């Protein structure tokens, strides 16, 4: 243990850590723009400078290791002057259109300028507007807002292992762009939106479909159905300033009705349905010598990743559609028929923690007769915006129940929202299908938590099952490479594109750190603990859907509506 003197206070620090990490632990806030938790520092933005008093030098707290007896000032006139100048210089080539910016109010640069008292343009002209890249179904790039901090590039490369974007050009002409400056739609971008989450400005944002949804809600001729994903109810409250980890499921349902949706369904219902299909598929593969390890297919960024980078694993992907697309397919078939509504009049909307879902719903596999099963996907953030626009104040609403028959869910479907949840739900049901008995303890600890790679060896009946759970596609790459290299102890691998799963999805409220994501995860597991129906196969509405319509898991109707096949995808990788 070593000691530092910071702003005339003595603090303790661990050998080898950075100044920033020591300061943060002691509640001393130093602003950063390029710093990323869990990745090595680059020291690119210089926002985190502190003054070393004996030398009067400015050093970057993010990249400088602590030393015993260091005397630092975090807000001397020199430090504040330097930070202010950095912001002024960043703003010198930045547009002055904060009023119209998608990031306004959530922008790190705006907040720094405000906090440091920048009240006028110190240098330069507002950047001329450059063309935005609106080619992608999920993500919009506005290069004129980019401050070249590099966080999107690092996320795409070091966390997701995708590298769809990189720095292009040099010096004042440098930008961040895909190869050959092409649109994101033809790049290897998997639409995960993690770049939006880390972007400090409005340079990256989601492709919004709010106007289309608002128009559908206002049109008396359409029947507008909405589904909401498991991970949305535990984060939506953050859009209204609530503490992290608050579940507002019932209030959200009430709010969606106030917006004018004709039916409100819960995607966790089709998560339960996914488990029935996927567990049966796994059992079938094991029994018939099918391709193993089976890989989950709920996460659309991951699907595109396999299509581009690992086409040899296409056969390993479960043929199950994602819960969103299963719900969409059922809404525009069974539901439309039962209610006697022309499916062309149904507008199917889903609220997702995800930007890749916007891409998924536009895939040609995801509809029939040129009618998409899901028409529009809104992120959690967009739902927050829609509610504010319509004046629906979520915190003041009385909770309501989702509509039948697709509003019932087990907690197994709900925990899909956290990395490991799909596997836990699948193991619970597989145990029942193979042994005829419920597990004594449904909670499976090794599958929980925010670690990027988790594994489980379990004995289910006569079967020794090897399972792995990974989140963040850099981790997926590593495990697929192991399987390619001959690793053969795995039967089933759950992969979530975003680190931590959907609770940390690219469509979730901004500004969440690791502790916020942990709180979101705990909220899901609290629901699992506190409700009686904890397995997908005990969802009575799922059972009834099989009796009335689908027949049996992997049956003819299931294959037609709930399963699909993907193919190799040619993009510039």
């Amino acid at each position: 243990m070593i000691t530092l003197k910071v702003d005339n206070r003595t603090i303790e620090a661990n050998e080898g850590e950075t100044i920033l990490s020591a300061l943060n632990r002691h509640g001393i806030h130093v602003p950063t723009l390029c710093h990323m938790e869990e990745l090595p520092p680059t020291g690119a933005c210089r926002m985190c400078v502190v003054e070393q008093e004996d030398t009067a030098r400015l050093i970057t707290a993010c990249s400088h290791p602590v030393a015993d007896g260091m005397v630092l000032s975090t807000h001397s006139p020199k430090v504040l002057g330097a930070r202010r100048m950095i912001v002024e210089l960043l703003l010198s080539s930045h547009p002055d259109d904060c009023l119209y910016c998608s990031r306004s109010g959530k922008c790190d640069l705006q907040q720094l300028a405000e906090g440091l008292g920048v009240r006028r343009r110190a240098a330069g002209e507002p950047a001329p507007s450059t063309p935005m890249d609106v080619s992608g179904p999920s993500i919009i790039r506005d290069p004129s807002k980019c401050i070249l901090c590099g966080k999107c590039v690092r996320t795409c490369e070091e966390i997701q292992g995708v590298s769809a974007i990189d720095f292009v050009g040099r010096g004042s002409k440098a930008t961040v762009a895909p190869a050959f400056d092409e649109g994101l739609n033809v790049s290897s971008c998997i639409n995960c939106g993690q770049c939006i989450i880390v972007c400090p400005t409005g340079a990256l944002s989601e492709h919004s479909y709010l106007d289309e949804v608002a128009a559908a809600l206002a049109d008396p001729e359409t029947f507008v159905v909405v589904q909401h994903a498991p991970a949305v109810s535990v984060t939506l409250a953050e859009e209204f300033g609530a503490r992290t980890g608050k579940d507002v499921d019932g209030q959200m349902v009430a709010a969606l009705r106030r917006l004018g949706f004709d039916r409100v369904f819960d995607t966790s219902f089709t998560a339960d349905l996914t488990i029935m299909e996927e567990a049966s598929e796994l059992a079938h593969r094991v029994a018939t010598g099918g391709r193993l390890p089976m890989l989950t297919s709920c996460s659309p960024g991951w699907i595109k990743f396999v299509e581009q980078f690992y086409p040899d694993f296409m056969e390993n992907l479960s043929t199950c559609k994602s819960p969103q697309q299963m719900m969409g397919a059922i809404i525009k078939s069974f539901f439309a028929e039962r209610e006697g509504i022309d499916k062309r009049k149904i507008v199917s909307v889903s609220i997702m923690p995800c930007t890749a879902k916007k891409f998924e719903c536009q895939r040609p596999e995801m509809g029939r007769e040129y009618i998409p099963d899901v028409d529009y996907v809104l992120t959690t953030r967009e739902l927050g915006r829609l509610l504010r626009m319509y004046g629906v104040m979520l915190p003041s609403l009385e909770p309501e129940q989702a509509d039948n028959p697709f509003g019932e869910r087990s907690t197994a479907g709900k925990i899909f929202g956290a990395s490991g949840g799909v596997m836990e739900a699948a193991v619970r049901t597989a145990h029942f299908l193979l042994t005829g008995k419920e597990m004594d303890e449904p909670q499976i600890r090794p599958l929980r938590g925010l670690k990027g790679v988790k594994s489980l060896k379990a004995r289910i009946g006569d079967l020794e099952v090897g399972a792995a759970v990974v989140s963040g596609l850099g981790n997926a790459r590593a495990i697929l490479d192991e399987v390619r290299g001959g690793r053969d102890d795995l039967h089933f691998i759950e992969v979530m594109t975003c680190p931590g799963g959907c609770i940390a999805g690219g469509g979730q409220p901004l500004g969440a750190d690791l502790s916020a994501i942990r709180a979101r995860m705990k909220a899901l597991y609290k629901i699992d603990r506190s409700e009686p129906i904890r397995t997908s196969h005990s969802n009575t509405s799922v059972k009834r859907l099989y009796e009335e319509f689908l027949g049996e898991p992997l049956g003819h109707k299931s294959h037609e509506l709930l399963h699909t096949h993907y193919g190799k995808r040619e993009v510039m990788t």
Partner: protein
Amino acid sequence: MPTEEVTNAEEIEQILADHAGRSRDDLIPILQEIQDTCGYLSREAVTSVGRYLNLPASKIYGVATFYNQFRFEPLGRYHIQVCRGTACHVKGSAGVMDMVINEIGVQPGQTSRDRLFSLEVVACMGACGLAPVICVNGEFHAKMTPRKLAQLVAEIRQKESSNAE
């Protein structure tokens, strides 16, 4: 240097095979050799190099755009290099540059749609006594003026159209 768009798949394969170590340290020499052979770095070339060195296309494009020497469009039949070195600058090469852009209608690094002209900016050709100087397909043109430049471009156009007939 070939001037037409060529895919040169075999030549690219040969260049890659000559760098058998597959080390990313070889990236820039490989790109240089490909540009020497093909005249530019095509999308196909970048993806082949990426597969060979296990590097993403975005990273290769990022590295290549960092340097002025790489181009991403095939050369025109007449490749114009405009010197923007110090002596040429003093003698008015900025004006020459604008003139060339106006006359042939392309920006530096680009090739005209009819593949007749391509334009490149170079830092110094070592011909400072001839400033401002331009170079067309290896042939130097000294002490450029707007009139001389217009005449040069007109002559090329005329020659090409009479060839076409």
